[in-house]
């Protein structure tokens, strides 16, 4: 279970200019939920997502993961938690350009070596490639893929370590309508078949219907 307890996050741009991205947000996300967070640009959606995974430190408040305060842990433990429990699908192209598709998918294994041998990792990556329908692309580089195909590979990478939670930040924002539908269907399928908790941030309010719960943010606060 992820708990945000009265979280605020300020970005200090200059001495005089401070952006209050998140203002006293409290939120609980239960295991197995598919939460869609909607809101306009600058409403604090992405910051909430980053706070949940410890990718940025809150200015005040606590982030609890299964009752443990994330910011009471060392960097090493936080990183270990990220590799074990979380996976990310970002808005921007987040595949490593110097690695092939297959290498990108198995990349999370580097940080979770205790649980994998190379054969098992290759087999799992192969299954995930099949699941996202890009089996024939295993040896190509990200630049040789379309934006939609890249995002499918990112989703496959996100599933590599059998995460408990997938945090998706505007995963369809750069995609055409048809591909957007395919990606959201993929998330729905993953949620249904892999029983993974999903928190998806989007500015498209129509996508809220795909989740089991919908949250709307505005001006750094949860408004609905």
């Amino acid at each position, binding site marked *: 279970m992820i708990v945000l307890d009265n979280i605020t996050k300020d970005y200090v741009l200059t001495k005089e200019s401070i952006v209050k991205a998140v203002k006293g947000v409290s939120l609980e996300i239960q295991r197995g939920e598919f939460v869609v967070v909607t809101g306009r640009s600058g409403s604090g959606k992405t910051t909430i997502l980053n706070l949940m995974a410890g*990718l940025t430190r809150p200015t005040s408040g606590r982030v609890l993961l299964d009752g443990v305060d994330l910011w009471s842990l060392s960097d090493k433990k936080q*990183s*270990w938690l990220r590799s074990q429990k979380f996976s990310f699908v970002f808005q*921007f192209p987040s595949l*490593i350009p110097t690695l092939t598709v297959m290498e990108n998918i*198995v990349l*999370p294994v*580097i940080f979770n070596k205790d649980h994998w041998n190379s054969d098992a990792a290759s087999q799992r990556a192969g299954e995930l490639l099949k699941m996202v329908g890009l089996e024939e692309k295993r040896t190509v580089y990200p630049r040789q893929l379309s934006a939609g195909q890249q995002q499918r590979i990112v989703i496959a990478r996100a599933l590599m370590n059998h995460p408990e939670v997938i945090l998706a930040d505007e995963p369809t924002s750069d995609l055409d309508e048809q591909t957007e539908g395919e990606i959201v269907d993929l998330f729905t399928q993953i949620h249904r078949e892999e029983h993974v908790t999903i928190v998806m941030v989007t500015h498209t309010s129509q996508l809220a219907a795909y989740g089991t719960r919908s949250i709307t943010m505005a001006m750094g606060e949860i408004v609905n």
Partner: protein
Amino acid sequence: MNFTRLALRSITGNSFRSWVVVLCAMLVAGLALATSLILRGAENSLRLTIDRLGADIIVVPQGAETKVESALLMSTPASIWMPDNVVGEIASVPGVAVVSPQLYLSSLENASCCSVSSMFLVAYDPATDFTIEPWLEKKIGSRLSLGEAVGGMHVFVPLGEENIKIYGYLISLKANLEPTGTGLDQTMFFTFETARDIARLSPTLAVKPLEIPLNSISAALVRVTPGVDPHEVALEIFRKVSGVTPLESPNLFLSYRKQMTGLLHSNLIVLGITWGLSLVLIGLVFSMAANERRRELGVLRALGATRDFVLRSLLMEAGILALIGGGVGVVLTTFVVILFRTRIIQSLSLPFIFPSILSLLVQVVAGLALALLSVALAALVPAYRISYQDPANAMRE
């Protein structure tokens, strides 16, 4: 997929950064090795020459110090003379154990009667000699007879002939001395008797006679009694014997040592400037590359990479590039020094002997270590900064 592979892929994927770092490391390691090789080569050469001379003091005519040094080190023919009665005067100085006179001669330049042109020739007195004779006894078990000689490493009998011709006189080469990297390698040694025989026959055999002034010598090698301070003996010779300069072994080749110091200073300045510029350039290039890869590194952090992993990964990339550049630099430098050794010696007017394999290896490793240290140092700040950045901030535009 593993840590090393990730670093190697990043190296091949960032070709501009990789080339700049490799070139800088190559320059730093190459320059450091070149400086070390040339200066240590010259120093070894001087030390070997002093050992070869085997004398504690060399007494030369006053004002002829530089000529003698040039003759011994660079094989520059020298015609210097002093009366042979100085030998007795030197021998009477307390603390002097042995005095052995030598004649410095040279073969004619491009003359049909000489098969070697402008070669430095040293005639020694077998009765008192303590440098060539012991070596001969050890190496060939006999002394030199009339018409026989030993040569430096690079003295050889011309192809198709059996003897070396000097002033039309045929000399049999009995053996070659070990290399010193100095003029001694191109010098021929024979006895006073042979020198006088050449001089006697040269008016009829040579295009120009060999002239040895009567009752004259060129230098006197002195060995002091064990336990006596050579410096005190040299001072005493200077006081008691007029018209001569005693050169103590440790002070020999002072002008060359000064030249080496000058060369060392200029090389260190060039090396220092290159090092400083390389450090700045590598630092800038790494900053640029790290900045370009902010998102990528942020993604790695999101996937579970620790700060240390990112830092080590960046430093490993730097280390691999430093070793590649440094490796190319030291190999190229070694080849250049081997191939252009003669030109380097000529242009620097310094003696040179190539170091032993072990010494070369030590210097190569030192060059590589300098390259590695420099690149790691330059990459450390940008790598540290990017690895300790908030992952969310790193991934923002």
